[in-house]
Each structure stands twice: as structure tokens, then as C-alpha cells.
């Protein structure tokens, strides 16, 4: 944090993500579906790890309820 190329950009982002996670949860969309991490261009292995972990999380959660609702509407 604070190392943003644009100074405070990531601080602003982090605040919004914190809010959004809780809003999503309240609306019935699992907050784990939203993730925000800072990985610098020099941290390849962290990035890979994060992405794999996130992919696993999403896989475990299954398809988004939004997608399912959308499919129902279209059918």
C-alpha cells in the first residue's frame, strides 16, 4: 500500500473493495468472488499463487448465482 504509481490509487481502491465485498455479501453474492491484492511486476510467483488460489476458490464456489439467474431468465 502507498506504493501506487499514482500515489493513493490503491488506497482508494482498497476502500471501495472493502465496501463492495460486504455489499455483495448482503445481496447474496459470495464476497469471496471479489478479491483485491497488490502484486508488483517483480513478484511473479506471488501472482501465480494468488491466481491459482483464486481460481480454486471460484471453482469451489461454483457458478455465480448471477449467471444462473441469467440463464433462468433466458430459458
Amino acid at each position: 500500500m502507498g506504493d501506487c504509481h499514482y500515489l493513493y490509487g490503491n488506497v482508494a481502491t482498497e476502500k471501495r473493495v472493502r465496501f463492495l465485498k460486504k455489499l455483495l455479501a448482503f445481496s447474496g453474492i459470495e464476497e469471496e468472488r471479489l478479491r483485491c491484492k497488490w502484486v508488483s511486476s517483480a513478484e511473479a510467483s506471488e501472482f501465480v499463487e494468488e491466481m491459482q488460489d483464486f481460481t480454486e476458490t471460484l471453482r469451489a464456489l461454483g457458478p455465480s448465482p448471477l449467471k444462473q439467474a441469467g440463464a433462468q431468465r433466458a430459458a
Partner: protein
Amino acid sequence: MTQNVKKKVKELLESGKIKGFLGLCQKNGHIGPHLFCDPDDLESMVLGDEERPGDSRYPLNKLLIHIARSYPDETFGVLVRGCDERGLKTLYTWNQLNPDKVIPVGVACPQELADACECLRPYPEEFVEGERAEERSSASVTKISGLDVKDRFTSWMKEFARCIKCYGCRDICPMCFCNECSLEAEELIHTGELPPEIPIFHLVRAVHMAGRCIDCGLCNEVCPADIPLRTLYKKVADIIDEEFNYRPGYSEGKSPLNILGSAAEE
């Protein structure tokens, strides 16, 4: 019940402290907003209780913005309940009203209304009418929070599915002062569909209410589909409070989302 307000307004008008008083009046069989300019013509003034307390409330702050934009140098009085006062304070921080040009005249809400609103502060800081009712916490939020995540989703989807996209929630909202509205941005929310894109339409608005909604509940009252919007925005306010220790209209200063860096949290 309006005697004290009338007295106060008469005083303000006679002394020339205000150019007009934006309140409510009974006219042509309707209770509606009215700008009182003559200290001797306050007979029709009411506080917005037709059948039940507060069942005829209007977004007076929002209307005041309309007037103030055309008459920035004049001072106006305005009728405020607890929520309206929170609205005023928040509008000051958003530079939409000038605190030096507004004189609020307060009324406290009766317990019945405080209960119905689940209001955290059903009275303004100063009031000339009514008595301080007990604060209420939001049982409606607790109820939904208590549901399983899937049931929460189903329940909101069911509510949103009724939306007829009247934009009333926005149009009545005293905090919606924008000239251009994101809800109308075609690229964000497809236009011309009923119901509007679910749940984007309502969640976009919920996001815009973060650090802004002062919990007046007019959105809920105006909704032709009876969507419990107030509950949604109450939760929005709760989140901002939990995360940043800020509640619009209750806390001082600007929204944490409008402050550079993380100063607000500390």
C-alpha cells in the same frame, strides 16, 4: 401541533433573516411542499402527517437545492426532521448547499414514526416541536443478514424483478443532486428493458449511496414496486460505518471514499 413552527417561521420571516421558508402545506386537498414567504400567511402550514405521522414527507432539502441554485445569495428556512437535518449536513459537505444560507427549523418525530423508520436518530439537534423519541436499530437489515447467502440472493432478485425503472428512488432522493446519472449510462446499464438489468441497476445505485444515504426512506415510499430499498441502503450505511467509522449526516466531515489516502480510518 404546528404552533411552535409557525411562530418560529413568522419570527424568521419578519426579522428578514430568511427570504422564504420551505415547508409543507395543505392545499387543494393535498399535502405538499410549499415556500412560505409571507409571515402573515402561514395558516395552511402542516408537518406532513395525513393519516399517520410523517406519511406525507417530501424531499424538502432537494427542492431547496433547486431554489438555492437560482438564488445563491438568499437565505432560506427549511423544515427538518432528524433525517432532513442529516441530509442538510451531508449536502453541505458535498458543496450543494451553503450552511450560511440555510436556517433549519426542527421537528422531532413521534415514536410511531421512529419505529417505522427504524431511525437511529429521530430528531434534529434542535427542534421546536415534538419530543425526543427513542432511537431504533434496523431489524430489517438484521433479518436479511440472518438469511443464508443463497436465500439472500433469491430474495433480492425477487424484489428487483418487480422494478419498473421509474427512477423514482433517484428522483426523490435528496442526496441525488447530479445532473447526469450513472443509472442512465447505457454502457453501464442497458436501457429500454423491464425490469432493468438485475441486479446491476440497484447495486449501482447502492454503491452511489455509500457515504451519501442519510436514511430518510423516501426511496422506499416512492417505489411503485415496493422494493425495500431503505433496507438495502441502511446496510450500505452500516458497512461504511463498520469499515470507516463514518455515517453520513451523523459523522462530521466528508465521506471516507472522498478522502485521499487512508486518513479517515485513523
